[in-house]
């Protein structure tokens, strides 16, 4: 049962992180370069999950997932299953909840990026996409790693929303944080200890990695290095 919960948690966090990065990179780029007065509104929407109690968010997402509302209805007619209390529903909820933790570091990094470098690249004939993939992304790779780790960690640590949307179905929606709650409720303290300590160690390792990454000069990041030749 514990291993199943570990597997569900890792699967959820991985899938969520991949989806998050795909969505958050263009979103953060758009926000960072937006001149419109709508920007604070959009930033507030993205940041909402950071301040709202997860149960509030979970409540609304649950409503939207239910077949009584258009999104849930659409899902039901397309797949024949309900979104609520399913793994897919859990992924959607996790993506929404962890979005600000991924968008914000990326947006800061994009805002701080020296626009002069992009002008220089443009003058050398690099078009929009070329500049984005060959200047923007590599120059902000530290923020990328940070954002992905934050998204992953936050998804693993989420409890309220998961409980509201996913419930507690072992093998389907029961993640570690729920399993811990379950174990305590049913007074299985050995298992509760294992989960709690495990999550604690995981969180420490992740944070130590993140902070040591933060101190390392960019040039020494072990992503790419080879001697110059010609």
């Amino acid at each position: 049962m514990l291993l199943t919960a570990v597997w569900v948690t890792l699967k959820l966090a991985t899938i969520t992180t991949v989806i998050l990065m795909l969505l958050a990179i263009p979103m953060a780029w758009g926000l960072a370069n937006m001149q419109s007065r709508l920007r604070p509104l959009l930033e507030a929407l993205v940041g909402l999950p950071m301040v709202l109690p997860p149960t509030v968010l979970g409540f609304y997402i649950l409503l939207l997932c239910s077949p009584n509302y258009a999104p849930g209805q659409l899902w039901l007619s397309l797949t024949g299953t309900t979104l609520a209390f399913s793994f897919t529903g859990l992924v959607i909820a996790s993506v929404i909840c962890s979005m600000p933790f991924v968008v914000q570091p990326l947006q800061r990094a994009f805002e701080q990026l020296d626009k002069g470098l992009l002008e220089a690249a443009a003058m050398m004939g690099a078009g929009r996409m070329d500049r984005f993939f060959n200047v923007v992304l590599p120059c902000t790779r530290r923020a990328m790693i940070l954002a992905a780790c934050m998204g992953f960690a936050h998804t693993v640590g989420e409890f309220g929303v998961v409980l509201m949307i996913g419930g507690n179905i072992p093998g389907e929606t029961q993640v570690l944080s729920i399993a811990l709650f379950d174990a305590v409720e049913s007074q299985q303290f050995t298992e509760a200890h294992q989960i709690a300590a495990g999550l604690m160690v995981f969180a420490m390792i992740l944070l130590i990695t993140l902070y040591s990454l933060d101190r390392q000069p960019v040039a020494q990041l072990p992503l790419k290095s080879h001697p110059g030749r010609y």
Partner: protein
Amino acid sequence: MLRIDIQLPRDRFVLSVDESLDTDNTWAMMGRSGCGKTSLLRTIAGLESHARGRLQFNDEIWQDSEQGIWVPPEQRGIGYIFQEARLFPHLDVMENLRFALRRARANVAMPSLSEVVEQLDIVHLLGRTVDKLSGGEKQRVAIARTLLNAPRLLLMDEPLASLDWSSKTSILPCLRNIHQHFGIPVVMVSHAREEVARLADKLLLIDQGQVVSRGECRQLLSRPGSLLTRDDCALSILEVQVGSHDHQYGFTELLLGGQKLLVNQISALPGTGLRVILPAHEVSIVVEDIHCTSVQNRVATTIQAIQELDSKNVMLFMAAEGQTLLALVTRRALGLLNLSVGQRVFAHFKGACLDVV
């Protein structure tokens, strides 16, 4: 031919320029900081999205606001050397060069990597990371990167402004070479007379967003009444030919018409046309033709104009062999020597203070 007809609103004025620049000469746009010269250069490059008007390079239209034509900067085939090097920090020196090489334009005059790297003396830097380079090294790599991109037009925005003197003296010859060696037309922006005098042939003087004078660099820099001769940094440019080399004493004889100048030995072949830059404050005036002085350069001139500078100094404009020399002298000396327009005098200056480019 670069045809510019551009308007760009700025904070205090509208930059409004209507000029044609031929591509056989190196052009400089000069003016005080904030006069709009950098904006003009950025507009040519396509980096100012608010600029309106028309831009044409040879038979290609880069911008025509009336017809809604706007070619993005990456498609204009321009090389831009910025004030700061703007090297990519995530790439090492060689990778920065490769970035430019991979995107090089199809150009007849495509400079080779080894040639550029040698000209700019950066062979030993190729494997280094960018943050380990000095300011001068960074700028040399930036220039190499721009050249390897094989641009059809090169724009330079005060490329030496952020550098110390020794870096300047090592980079200036490289920049001077670009037009001659690689055959790329150059338009540069500067507020420094020495930089312009060394690099440019023709000059646009810009003030408050308008072109106020246009002409030969040599003439504009030494014309009485011009903004450029109203302070003690004025200088004159002399066109000379290499005469002969004296290997024993280590000097070179330059010919200014029928007269001779001596400078520290240079490597140019006899007959080569060169440019000598002579700061006005290095020139002293001697009324009689005396020989018993350690100053080796003595040019016979005629005073053409005397212009008041401030309470202490005046500027003398003197003609020699059809060219103009400037001399900064004190009012006291002017009175003591009783100098007047039309008088024949001798301009004395040391060979070491001459800049030969």
